[in-house]
């Protein structure tokens, strides 16, 4: 459970265009790391490289290493699907499987992994839905379609689905940007609970959110116009928001750009 991630010289390409340039970062287990920065600076691309979702896009590739507890997930011979079973992801827009019930959504990952027993599945569903703070709201309608929930509930269902398979790391790509403030707060509270058991990396547009939930913050931006994005500074959240080392970080935090 809860592994450390370390990237060494991680660069991401879309065909011939470099989108992210040489990131070196260490993400500690059982913590929340926020990745902030202006739009289009490669934050999401970087995140997707961590669970090999980046290569799903045709002609997309990666250079460098991503070490999960000292094991490079990009070693030839490693099955990307196996990586994704260990590093889970929650997306910007909630995407529960529309033709499945709430219950089926929650255990979808487990079913794929071959878990069949009815009681095992029900147990896992309750466990993950409780962990996602959704159980009380849906326990009486588990067999209803997953798409019938509100946006915030759908997103929590997606979180439940992701943690039901007990990943070691949870990646969240702007999980609250399509939600209302109340749902957002609910999910932020959830993150504080989840970090007891998982390593969490969250990309967010919202600086206040980063300040609220994360232990470590990493600031990305473009080197210049038309240039790839890169990691400017990474430090404890406290430090970044009160006394950043880099000028550009300070400019972004104080709203002078982005």
């Amino acid at each position, binding site marked *: 459970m809860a592994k450390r991630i370390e990237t060494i010289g991680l660069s991401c390409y879309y065909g011939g265009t470099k989108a992210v340039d040489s990131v070196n970062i260490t993400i500690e287990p059982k913590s929340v790391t926020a990745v902030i920065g202006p739009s289009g600076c490669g934050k999401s691309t970087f995140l997707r490289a961590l669970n090999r979702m980046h290569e799903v896009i045709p002609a997309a590739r990666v250079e460098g290493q991503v070490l*999960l507890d*000292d*094991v490079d997930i990009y070693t030839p011979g*490693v*099955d990307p699907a*196996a*990586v994704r079973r260990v590093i889970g992801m929650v997306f910007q827009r909630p995407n529960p499987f529309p033709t499945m019930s709430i219950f089926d959504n929650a255990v979808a990952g487990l079913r*794929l992994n*071959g878990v069949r027993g009815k009681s095992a599945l029900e147990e896992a569903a309750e466990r993950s839905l409780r962990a996602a703070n959704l159980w009380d709201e849906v326990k009486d309608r588990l067999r209803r379609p997953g798409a019938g929930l509100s946006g915030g509930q759908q997103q929590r269902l997606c979180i439940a689905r992701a943690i039901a398979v007990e990943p070691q790391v949870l990646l969240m790509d702007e999980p609250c940007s399509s939600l209302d403030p109340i749902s957002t707060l609910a999910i932020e509270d959830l993150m504080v609970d989840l970090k007891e058991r998982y390593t969490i990396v969250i990309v967010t547009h919202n600086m206040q959110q980063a300040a609220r939930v994360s232990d470590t913050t990493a600031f990305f931006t473009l080197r210049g116009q038309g240039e790839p994005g890169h990691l400017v500074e990474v430090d404890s959240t406290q430090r970044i928001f009160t006394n950043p080392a880099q000028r550009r970080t300070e400019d972004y935090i104080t709203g002078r750009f982005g």
Partner: protein
Amino acid sequence: MSGASALGLQRRRLSRWGLLLAIVAGVAVTAGLFSVTPLQGRADFLVVAVVLVLAAVTAASWSVEGGRAARNRLATGLALLALALALLPLAFVLGYTTLRGLHRFTGGFLTHSMAGVGPLSTGGGVYHAIIGTLEQVTLSSLIAVPLGLLVAVYVTEYGRGVTATAVRFLIDVMTGIPSIVAGLFILAFYIIALHRGFSGFAGALALTILELPIIVRASEEMIKLVPAGLREAAYALGVPKWRTIVRIVLPTASTGITTGVMLAVARVIGETAPVLLTVGDNSFIHTNPFAGAQGSLPLFVFQQAGSSSNFDVQRAWAGALTLILLVVVLYVAARLLTRRNTLAQR
């Protein structure tokens, strides 16, 4: 590396050599089976080989990579098989028709009619049939294209209210009319009730019933693709609605509409059933489509095909080859036109 296996990440993967080995094994077993058992025949060999190769690859994958990966490989294999099953008939139909059609496909064949040529003679040709088909399809397009365009414009630009919805619905109904029913209608209405008798024009009318909904549908799609911003810009400049449609919307959609027309023509050129009931039977060159029975290329093929004479059958194949050439040329031209248009827009 060992850390990766411990994490379960490093799954053993079936290497390219392993895959090749499995395929070869499948074929080899098939060959073995065919030499020791009474099984024989090229087609049977192919079928058994495919089944065994699929089984071998799945089994190899299962033992090396595990159940989930094996199922994945099987699915990929089946999808590839489906692709082959879909493309094989195409290759066979086009190839076999060319093979048998070439025998009699000469200049003489294209320039002579069947006047005085009986089932036991080797001469004869499709000249009369080509004339007939070209005239019939031209006539039907002359009616269907303007009418179809107007209906498409009505439905897209003036399409509010019950009438427009009803028209759209009726066009849907028309796309489903079986071609023989279209022929039946013209037979009942034009030929019998109006006492007009068989003629090329009657055939053209039947073809119009089939061509019209295709053109309406295609034009509708193309007109809908014209960006609303273009129309708004014209209205904002004070151009009246009808001018906007005629001078701006239709020209913008024109390439797509032309493609639609070409595909519709390609479709009706090959229609036999409607002309079977309406153009009558004529082996002579008959250039007046408005009176008297006329020839038709698909009808020619149909009639010659059903004959018990070898010469007739040979003529049928040559006629089929002619027909396919016409259709394929139209079809490919239409696709090339679409591609050129898409490229130009980039």
